[in-house]
């Protein structure tokens, strides 16, 4: 996980926090491989050792945060698929990626936007993740609303694509294959969240893509540089396959965005780990425009008991054509 982050995070009262440091190791391993992870130096020896029952018990952390004992013979090393994340059409095995955004923590620092743009070689005004000022009711205080592709479970965009250029993967991510896209933009019309962006070949952007195409940071599976095609937040599958959290999560100074795996029932912002189901229950998690039936894989925690009072943006962004 990313280190050196300022410890601005105000700890939640969730019980899960007490074991934060243990869980961090747990999450890192589990993100890497999927399945159950072990704690302590014992683990390596156990994994390498014989597979016959020897009566030896080892301690494991269960999905709901309980310490349990299992016979070491029943523990198997998880095979890491080294090709995972390199093929746009293939999901990372065993994963069901999910995202939680804590609206009580966002102060519109825009670090997620810049991080994402750097990660994918995007220049403003293209933003795969946006931060919008929202105000649902006049009497309520406005709040900042980070928003990107929600990787819906009933995605309207993939239904309408005539050539299977955008599709749902086994790991829950909705991806676009830019070598297949014919640029009809039907998916953009179909997405009610306006999450998709089109490469119209803005000269500065094209030159930037060319200049930085070999940068180490970029996610190689998505190819927004493909002229005349649609792209959007790809959920950073290359990083996730390696156990690295997406750029928007890593760069956020306030720990607003959590990323994780629904199969493991955990999400993390790099500093904290929560049990997904508990977090959503306790904090009344919701999905944007759930009534549309799109079943987003992105949950919001309502902007209550905020860490910051709402402040208007100091400057206008993306004013340049």
């Amino acid at each position, binding site marked *: 996980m990313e280190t050196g982050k300022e410890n601005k995070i105000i700890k939640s009262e969730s019980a899960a926090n007490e074991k934060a440091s243990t869980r961090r190791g747990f999450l890192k391993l589990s993100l890497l491989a999927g399945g159950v992870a072990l704690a302590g130096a014992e683990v390596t020896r156990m994994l390498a050792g014989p597979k016959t029952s020897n009566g030896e018990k080892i301690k494991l952390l269960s999905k709901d945060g309980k310490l349990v004992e299992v016979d070491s013979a029943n523990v198997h090393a998880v095979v890491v698929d080294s090709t995972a994340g390199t093929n746009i059409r293939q999901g990372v095995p065993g994963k069901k990626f999910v995202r939680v955004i804590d609206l009580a923590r966002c102060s519109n620092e825009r670090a997620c936007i810049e991080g994402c743009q750097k990660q994918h070689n995007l220049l403003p*005004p*293209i*933003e795969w993740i*946006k*931060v*919008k*000022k*929202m105000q649902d009711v006049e009497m309520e205080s406005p709040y900042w609303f980070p*928003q990107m592709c929600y990787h819906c479970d009933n995605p*309207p965009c993939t*239904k*309408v*694509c*005539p*050539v*299977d*250029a955008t599709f749902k993967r086994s790991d829950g991510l909705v991806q676009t294959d830019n070598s*297949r*896209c*014919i*640029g*009809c*933009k*039907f998916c*953009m*019309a*179909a997405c*009610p*969240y*306006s999450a*998709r*962006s*089109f*490469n*119209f*070949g*803005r*000269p500065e*952007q*094209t030159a930037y893509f060319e200049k930085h195409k070999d940068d180490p940071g970029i996610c190689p599976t998505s190819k927004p540089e493909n*002229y*005349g*095609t*649609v792209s959007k937040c790809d959920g950073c599958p290359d990083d996730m396959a390696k156990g690295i959290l997406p750029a928007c999560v890593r760069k956020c100074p306030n720990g607003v965005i959590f990323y994780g795996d629904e199969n493991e029932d955990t999400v993390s912002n790099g500093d904290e780990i929560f049990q997904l189901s508990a977090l959503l229950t306790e904090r009344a998690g919701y999905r*944007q*425009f759930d009534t*549309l039936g*799109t079943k987003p894989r992105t949950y919001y925690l309502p902007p209550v008991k905020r860490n910051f009072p709402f402040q208007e943006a100091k400057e*206008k*962004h*993306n*004013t*340049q*054509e």
Partner: protein
Amino acid sequence: MQEKYSKMESDLLQPIRKISLAGKIWIGFLIIACLCGLYAYYLQESRSKYETIALRDYTMWGVYISTFVFYVALSLVGALMSAILKLINFEWYRPLARIAQIISVSAIIMAGLCIDSAMGRPDRLYYLLLHGRLQSPIVWDVIVVVTYIAASCLLLFIPMLPEMAICRDRLTEKPAWMRWMYNKLSFGWKGAPEQWKIVKRSVHILAVMVVPLGVSIHTVTAWLFATTLRPEWDSTNFGPYFVSGAFLLGCAAMIVAVYMIRKFYHYEKYLTVKHFDRMGKMLVLLGLCYTYFNVNEYLVPSYKMSGLHANHLLDLFVGESAAMYWMVAVFGFIIPGTLPMFKAMRKPLPLTIIATTVVIAAWFKRYLIVIPGLSHTFLPIQDVPESWTHYTPSLIEMTIVGATFAALLLIVTLFSRLFPIISIWEVAEGEGVNLSRINKHIKSKMV
């Protein structure tokens, strides 16, 4: 009777025999307009689209798509004026059928060109065949459009078979290539009773086919919008609403076309005042139908004024798009639905003026359906440059769209200069000429 037929034949072949200077200038003008469009298309495809066209991430569909919808609507004129009238035994269809059919075929070609211009990667068009997936409404559209164009071409061509033989035998002064073409296209037409039977039977079957196909293509085109979750398009009314608008546009376009052909080819005898009177009545009926669907489409959601629809509806009624919206309402369906109720308004000139405004309003109507809605998204549009929030078509886009109109007129004009634009045998049959006489006529020339 024989004399009457000969006069008719010679009248209807006249535009092919001689092209006046004005006719040549007209063709030259259309060719230049098409070349401008080709050049604009070259510029669009060879340079950055961010600079050549005004589309951005929010308004990602612009005039190309709205004009595409316009052309698909226009292409229903064949189903209406040649097939439906024929099937319900409205005898006055006879001189109109071919005019409607050629407009129909060229409109659908132009619809295809609009789609090609709208695509980000036209070089990958064949992916639709390679990777096409049946659940996408685009693939449905491709399937019905291709079927409709095939049926329409046949419905245009099969009734022309006897006339190709007439052209072959009559237009002996024409250059060799034209006579060769007529000869080939006549497919050895001899006018045998068996051949007449096959022609009539095929035309009848095709006329029956083309009506549901026409309704399908425009319904599927409506579904391209109605299958999305966008509030302004989220309507169960969309299919019939589009189809009724298409029939209205078809009728209006037909009035304009008939007026022009009548005037320039001096066809007053064939395209009569009576035709205008009837098309005028038809315009009223279709105008009222379209008004009805518009009331359903806009009045019912505006009664509720739900949060999702309010943005879009208020923009149309009192906002930025209001001027265009109300102009379209008045000229697009209120006037055609009422004015031609009066006999004086069904005379050729007044009716043509009304019909012209209907055609123009119909183009803006499609613009209003496609574009303003796109800028009223569910989530607010923030932090974007000015050009991302307001779409105004660029010069290149408008040149290409203009060129497709020129190309449509060019196809219709050239067709009328190569083939009889009014079906000789169908009119003759309507006038009581025995078809066997036409047979004899051809045969005598063949000997």
